[in-house]
């Protein structure tokens, strides 16, 4: 018995060593033969960017760019940030992704493009507000809409973000509070309804699974099916979204900022002073209907 056991260990060890030998040969190969290996690996990615047309090249570059990072070492601190071609000012943080939203699966996280003058603002809101907050109108459903934060990473409901609450500290110049940062809460405001005593977001994992399934099978779907499914997926989306001054107004803002953890001074800015003043300036500067993006002629 002991002998058999020994024999098994022996043979097992020998086989392991054989695997190790083969691995070593494989491991050695680039060291022995390939002084060009590294350069080629770096270049082969670049070669994708050498398509015939400018568009092809840009397309390839965009695919590549996701991996580009910039790191600055100042000795007393290190700044890690994404590399954005042509950008001069520092970002100083990694752009977080929204893993919970099903809209971003197709539309990305910089979705607004139609209304040229305000698209950056709309994208800015998309950083901390779920799409359905503005793009689903409650009056259609006759439901009482409530708002809560969800964690961008996990998609779970979370408490009011600490970073948001702490803006107040920056106002009060409490030692240790950094520059106030806006929108960087790692969370988004999303609408939901009270159901059976509990809160339920309007978006659901079911919807997300649906979209994911669609994307996975897109290649094999017929063109007719695609149109049908798109219609279905976008049901409930209102052509005319919530407008700027429905939230940024003093009397009855659509989103209850204070309940969502906004500190009083910030609430005041949002519904009363600076932001509202800004919107008024915008109305003067651009033609008024830019502020009601839904009025744009429909895309399709």
């Amino acid at each position, binding site marked *: 018995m002991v002998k058999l056991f020994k024999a098994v260990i022996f043979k097992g060890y020998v086989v392991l*060593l054989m695997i190790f030998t083969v691995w070593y040969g494989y491991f050695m190969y680039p060291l022995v033969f390939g002084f060009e290996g590294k350069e080629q690996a770096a270049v082969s990615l670049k070669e994708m960017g050498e398509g015939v047309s400018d568009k092809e090249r840009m397309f390839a570059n965009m695919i590549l760019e996701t991996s580009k990072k910039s790191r600055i070492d100042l000795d007393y601190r290190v700044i890690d940030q994404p590399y954005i071609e042509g950008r001069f000012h520092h970002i100083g943080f990694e752009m977080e992704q929204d893993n919970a939203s099903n809209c971003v699966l197709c539309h990305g996280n910089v979705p607004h493009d139609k209304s040229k003058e305000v698209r950056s603002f709309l994208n800015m809101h998309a950083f901390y507000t779920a799409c359905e907050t503005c793009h689903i109108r409650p009056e259609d459903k006759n439901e009482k809409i409530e708002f809560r934060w969800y964690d961008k990473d996990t998609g779970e409901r979370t408490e009011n973000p600490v970073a948001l609450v702490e803006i107040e500290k920056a106002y009060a110049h409490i030692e240790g509070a950094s520059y106030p940062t806006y929108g960087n809460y790692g969370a988004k405001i999303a609408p939901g309804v009270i159901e059976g005593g509990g809160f339920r977001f309007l978006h659901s994992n079911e919807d997300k699974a649906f979209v994911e399934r669609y994307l996975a099978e897109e290649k094999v779907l017929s063109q007719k099916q695609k149109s049908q499914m798109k219609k279905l997926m976008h049901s409930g989306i209102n052509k005319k979204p919530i407008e700027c001054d429905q939230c940024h107004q003093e009397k009855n803002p659509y989103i209850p900022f204070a309940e969502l953890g906004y500190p009083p001074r910030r609430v005041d800015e949002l519904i009363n002073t600076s932001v509202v003043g800004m919107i008024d300036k915008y109305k003067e500067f651009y033609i008024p209907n830019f502020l009601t993006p839904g009025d744009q002629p429909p895309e399709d």
Partner: protein
Amino acid sequence: MSKKYQAIVEKDGVRYFHRFSSHQRVQHVVLFTSVITLALTGFPLRHAEEAWARPLYDFMGGTEIAPLIHRAAGTVLLALFVYHTAYWMIRFYREHVVKLRERGELTVGSFFRELFSLEMVPNKKDLVDIIQLWKYLFYFTNRPPRHDRMSWREKFDYFAPYWGIPILGPAGAALWWRDEISHVVPGIVLNAAYIMHTDEALLAVLFLFFVHWYNVHYAPEKFPAATVWLTGYLNEHDMIHEHYNEYVRVMIENGLEDEIKPQNFGGEEYEW
């Protein structure tokens, strides 16, 4: 040498055969200590772009200290090379040349004959052993080769550094004293020295850390480590397996002819 060390000692009923004198063992320790130090301070630099390079180099002292350690270890290794060369030459003189002269047989021919019959010099028997080994490995025979005192693999292990150090050492020294040497040779020599130093180092390290370590560490009958480099004595089992001719010879010389064991055939030698 053989006067100081008994050819065979017996301990706990196991016979041990003398292989290396303490002098040789100390040289081996100096050799591998300096080589490992050189590898640890040299390879992070050679592969500076790999992820492991920076932490290892910082651990070895960083860009200020590690080069100093590398150069110190290199100096030790070169000194060992010189020392070892003197060592075998003196021994050769004392143990061979002097004896030849005493017998009045010292000629150019006999000098070289003696030189080439030194135990480390490759000879015809090695070729026979290599062929026998491959026959054995491809299952054409059940008899492993019968090595003399030094098998061809040990000779290769010996000559690898003996060829490597004269390449690595002077190249390394040239790169170290680059400013001074530029008064003697043009800068392009440093290009050559760079390739010699880095590529020969790679060969040495890849060889040592796999082939040599296989021979003395990984091989099933050695795992986890052979002890002969510490004790200088090899047990009977391994002696039969690795140096059968030598084994028989030593046994006969020591009057133990009746107790000579047969050569292990067909796997018996691999029993644990």
